[in-house]
């Protein structure tokens, strides 16, 4: 799960990381009001994406007039960054942040190294830029310090880090405190990424976190209700959000063949199969291992809410899931949604004979598929593509 910068800043503060003063505005008027006695300041669009500065989502203002101008431009703006895709994201909240003079910039982050099963701190003296670029062009400019998941942060790690970044005097102690707080926050709140980009030395010679980004492990949200509350559904694809509420795993794509599959691996493979025979999947959809007929219905509603969909391909390999249960769900969903699109169904595995028989005898115009290949080819044809 992702959160907004202003929410991440609050968490940084809670863990003793130095952050600029900030105020959150939800309208132009509020921005103007909050800026009184607070200028000069920086207005930062709050959307779940990096690269906001480059896209015009960050504006400096010297006085209230300039705050008004900037706020007018930012609120309601469709911010298109490298991460948002062409459809962009609407700006609904703006963070007013104290202006900070920047003397030097660094990059600091922590994430989990899946191979070792430990968090790893990453830092670079190239702050403010995209770390992926640095990693590609100048890997030697990035220092990686593994942190033990059981032992936590150790001071020697901060000394290594300060040496690498070329810090001196008080800044070295400040870095210790930043890293210690960051590692503690990362572990205690079950983060999957915490990033300070940039961490700067400000005009007063102090370290300061000028941006804050935190992602959380969805699987651990059950033990952090205070974090789960920070979720902003408006930042998510509405269909993906609805799916997550019904226990389905859905990702919207740009093709025209709606897919309904059980199991993530098979769902991905089904997308590949459709693609291989000249079609484009409209989505990834995993109904899970224990789908009920209710869930199948919800899945159909999701697929049909995508107006690009020209055909639906159901690909089920029943293990735990019984094909007759799926068949029942399909029959109900087709009748209740008055489905008019071509529907191709492949049922294999547990109780597949019963399931196929139910579909045949339902009198519905369902196109049966022998196997995954047959189904993909029929779906591509039905969607108007060439095989």
């Amino acid at each position: 799960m992702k959160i907004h910068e202003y929410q991440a800043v609050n968490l940084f503060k809670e863990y003793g990381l130095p952050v600029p003063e900030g105020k959150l505005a939800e309208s132009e008027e509020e921005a103007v009001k909050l800026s009184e006695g607070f200028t000069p300041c920086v207005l930062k669009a709050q959307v779940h994406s990096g690269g906001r500065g480059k896209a015009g989502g960050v504006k400096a203002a010297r006085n209230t007039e300039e705050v008004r101008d900037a706020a007018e431009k930012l609120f309601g703006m469709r911010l298109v960054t490298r991460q948002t895709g062409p459809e962009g994201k609407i700006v609904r909240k703006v963070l007013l942040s104290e202006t900070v003079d920047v003397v030097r910039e660094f990059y600091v982050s922590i994430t989990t190294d899946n191979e070792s099963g430990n968090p790893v701190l990453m830092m670079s003296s190239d702050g403010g830029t995209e770390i992926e670029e640095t990693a590609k062009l100048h890997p030697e400019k990035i220092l990686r310090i593994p942190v033990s998941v059981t032992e936590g942060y150790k001071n020697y790690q901060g000394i290594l880090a300060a040496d690498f970044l070329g810090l001196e005097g008080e800044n070295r102690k400040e870095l210790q405190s930043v890293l210690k707080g960051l590692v503690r926050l990362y572990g205690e709140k079950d983060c999957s990424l915490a990033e300070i980009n940039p961490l700067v030395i400000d005009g007063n010679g102090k370290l300061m976190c000028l941006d804050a980004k935190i992602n959380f492990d969805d699987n651990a949200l059950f033990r952090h209700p205070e974090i789960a509350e920070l979720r902003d559904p408006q930042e998510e694809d509405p269909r993906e959000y609805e799916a997550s509420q019904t226990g389905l795993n859905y990702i919207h794509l740009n093709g025209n063949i709606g897919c309904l599959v059980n199991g993530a691996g098979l769902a991905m493979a089904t997308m590949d199969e459709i693609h291989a025979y000249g079609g484009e999947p409209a989505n990834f959809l995993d109904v899970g291992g224990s789908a009920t007929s209710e869930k199948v219905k919800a899945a159909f509603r999701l697929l049909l809410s995508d107006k690009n969909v020209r055909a639906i391909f159901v690909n089920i390999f029943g293990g735990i899931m019984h094909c007759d249960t799926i068949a029942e769900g399909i029959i109900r969903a087709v009748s209740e949604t008055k489905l008019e699109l071509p529907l191709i169904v492949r049922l294999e595995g547990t109780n597949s004979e019963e399931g196929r028989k139910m579909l045949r005898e339902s009198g519905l115009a369902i196109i049966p598929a022998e196997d995954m290949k047959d189904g993909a080819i029929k779906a591509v044809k039905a969607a108007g593509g060439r095989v």
Partner: protein
Amino acid sequence: MSILINRNTKVLVQGITGKQGQFHTGQMLEYGTDIVAGVTPGKGGQEIFGLPVFNTVREAKEKTGADASVIYVPPAYAADSILEAADAGIRIIVCITEGIPVKDMCRVKQYLRGKETVLIGPNCPGIITPGECKIGIMPGYIHKPGHVGIVSRSGTLTYEAVKQLSDRGIGQSTVVGIGGDPVKCTGFLEILKAFEEDPDTYAVVMNGEIGGSGEEEAAEYIRNHMTKPVAAFIGGRTAPEGKRMGHAGAIISAGKGTAAGKIEALRNAGAEIADTPDEIGEALVRALIRKGIYEHCKSS
């Protein structure tokens, strides 16, 4: 012969009194798995399917001599259950549970480091040695005893591969679902090594997917050490970058862990690549013919 489990494996079920645990215990018993007991804290002394239920794995192991355990425990408690089984000296632990917090698995990984315990999963379908022992949730009847090992990150895609083999009369020695989570203790590498060492496995099918570097490591091993033919499929060629495709491990970031990179590595290592998922069986047949062992792998 087979890897990890066989007809002599004695299995415990942790979480046997839960809905999932009960259902799949029934299925495993039906398949012929030698399940010796169940474990659910606080339910010790009860019986289920005529099997004794114990409060702890330690007690269950002492009383029954179990050497494997399968975990159907909710995500919040699953890591605990893994540690309990490891601590009691269980040799093979299969964790079916989906949705365990990453940090919990990181801790488990550190704890198991250097120990002999083998943990399969989490978020996996389990392991099966056809005709002998099934530990997990896969539909048993699609399998056929034989000489091809299968290792896969996904559940239902594994079934797909199994069926394609069985339909061609090619049986399996052991089928291992290593699971879709990013942090795990047993990956492709460990399972490929086991298959390479197993005299009864003649060839291997490997189903990988986008994300992580397990397939690349496997390719390295295949190239340098593997004498048996390998057929491979990599799922997620069409997946968009940065999106999590259901499996938490299946996310490609910054050009790493792409399907193209994995396919290239495996091809260069000499693996026979299935270009589409419907071609897994065919790719294996090609690999077997190339090695001249197709007839040996066909069951009568």
